[in-house]
């Protein structure tokens, strides 16, 4: 049950969200809040609707033919569908994809791209943004001597950290991560997890992951998605402390299906 105070303090508030692709329903009846400075984990098997959920948050449905979003998504007190400038909305929401996407630009330009497109920032400001974001993504020390080389030719783990640095380049309030570790080695995964824990002081994170243990390590609260529905939302310690209410959640956490 949602109380008024919950809605008031939530950074992200989703009501009766449904997503369809043509005739196919990918997600329906999702209700949840994400509070400021928490890491909100979303777990669930493939086709649970996790990625579609993320797409709806920053209105990427604009770019997906046939994708229809119903219901309400409130971000920072605004209904996202009514925000006139969808581009401004996306500047407030950073996104990290399952496969690392180093754009075929220099490392520097990868991070500087968004501030440049937004039309602000002088050269010295850009220098400062690039260094700060690369440091926050734990990549600075590895690339500081070759900022002019192509970001798309870095190793997978480095590219994923570059993607995170790029997502941070506009100081977003919300960071969406979609299974960031599936193409990344375990050491890099651990480094990124440390980065995320530190980032929590500055922003809010929605973490979609296939790895139940990763969600457990990082999340404050976890939502379990299954077959296009949000089955259960609970505090991480409750969920793993045996307080899961739904039998399907228990089964998934214990690896009994999927």
């Amino acid at each position, binding site marked *: 049950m949602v109380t008024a105070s919950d809605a008031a303090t939530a950074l992200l508030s989703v009501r009766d969200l449904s997503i369809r692709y043509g005739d196919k329903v990918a997600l329906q009846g999702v209700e949840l809040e994400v509070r400021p400075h928490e890491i909100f984990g979303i777990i669930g098997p493939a086709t649970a609707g996790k990625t579609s959920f993320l797409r709806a948050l920053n209105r990427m449905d604009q770019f997906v033919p046939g994708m229809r979003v119903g219901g309400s998504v409130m971000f920072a007190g605004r209904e996202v569908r009514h925000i006139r400038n969808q581009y401004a909305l996306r500047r407030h929401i950073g996104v990290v994809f399952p496969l690392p*996407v180093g*754009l*075929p*630009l220099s490392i520097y330009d990868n991070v500087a*791209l*968004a501030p440049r*497109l937004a039309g602000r920032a002088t050269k010295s400001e850009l220098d400062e943004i690039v260094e700060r974001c690369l440091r926050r993504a734990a990549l600075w020390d590895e690339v500081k001597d070759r900022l002019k080389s192509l970001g798309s*030719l870095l190793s997978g783990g480095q590219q994923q950290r570059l993607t995170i640095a*790029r*997502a941070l380049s506009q100081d977003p309030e919300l960071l969406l991560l979609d299974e960031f570790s599936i193409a990344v080695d375990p050491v890099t995964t651990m480094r990124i997890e440390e980065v995320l824990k530190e980032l929590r002081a500055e922003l809010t994170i929605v973490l979609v992951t296939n790895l139940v243990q990763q969600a457990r390590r990082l999340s404050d609260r976890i939502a379990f998605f299954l077959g296009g529905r949000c089955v259960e939302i609970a505090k991480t310690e409750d969920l793993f402390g045996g307080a899961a209410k739904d039998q399907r959640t228990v089964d998934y956490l214990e690896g009994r299906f999927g």
Partner: protein
Amino acid sequence: MTEPAPGFGATPLEGRNNAIQQGVKLLFGLMTVVLVLPVIAILGTLVYEGGPALTLGFFLDMPRNGMTEGGIFPALIGTIWLTAGALVVAVPLGIAAAIYLSEYAPDTMLTRTINLAIINLAGVPSIVHALFGVGAFVYFLRFGTSILAASCTLAVMTLPVVIVATRESLQAVPRAFREACWSLGATRWQTIARIVLPNSGSGILTGIILVVSRAVGETAPIMFTGAAFFVPFLPQGVFDQTMALSLHLYNVSTQVNLGEGHKHLPFAVALTLILVVLAMNALAIFFRMRLRGRKRW
């Protein structure tokens, strides 16, 4: 070991497969040779018959004595005018249309039909384009028989090449790059300008150079729309008629009574034409290698 280990000898079936494989390889190799032979024969004949006539004077002289002597200067200049004109019209139009079709247009019946129409346009015989050019540019738009009308006709004929080449190279840029760019708050156009176009340059360039090759060589589309049998002066503007290499080759081969000692003239013109096309193709290969040489992702 001197003998193969037991179990590694060829069974009868494997032996037969091996023989078939060798036979197929030989057969297809021979076919490739057969394919290359005419190319060598054509080039060889042209170089042998026309090569000695290719002097600087041949390129820079006006035709003389009813086009049976002298050089090809006005035809060469005319071809440059026509080709440049075709490029000026076809390239911006084609690239813009390709960007729209690849990056903006929704996938509907209409856009699919348009795509199909573009591909079919490439298969329309050039003489049909010529008639269209006469109707549309010479008469309807009142360009008269002129460089402008001929260039526009060539442009219409080569547009599908530009569109298809551009669209393919745009679509070779992974969608993930676009999504990453969009998610940063970039508009479609910013994404195209910053990420998509800079990484599809080599394909677009290839399309442009293919246009040049075709525009240089085509005869039918220009002979009714702007190219003339003989013009004793160089074109002064786009509303002038002009001579052109391809039509000039047709004329000196079939329409002019060449005296003894001038039989090399058509070969020399043909060789010039081929050299221009080959030079363009070489340029295309050079640019593509420069652009593709560096791995981008």
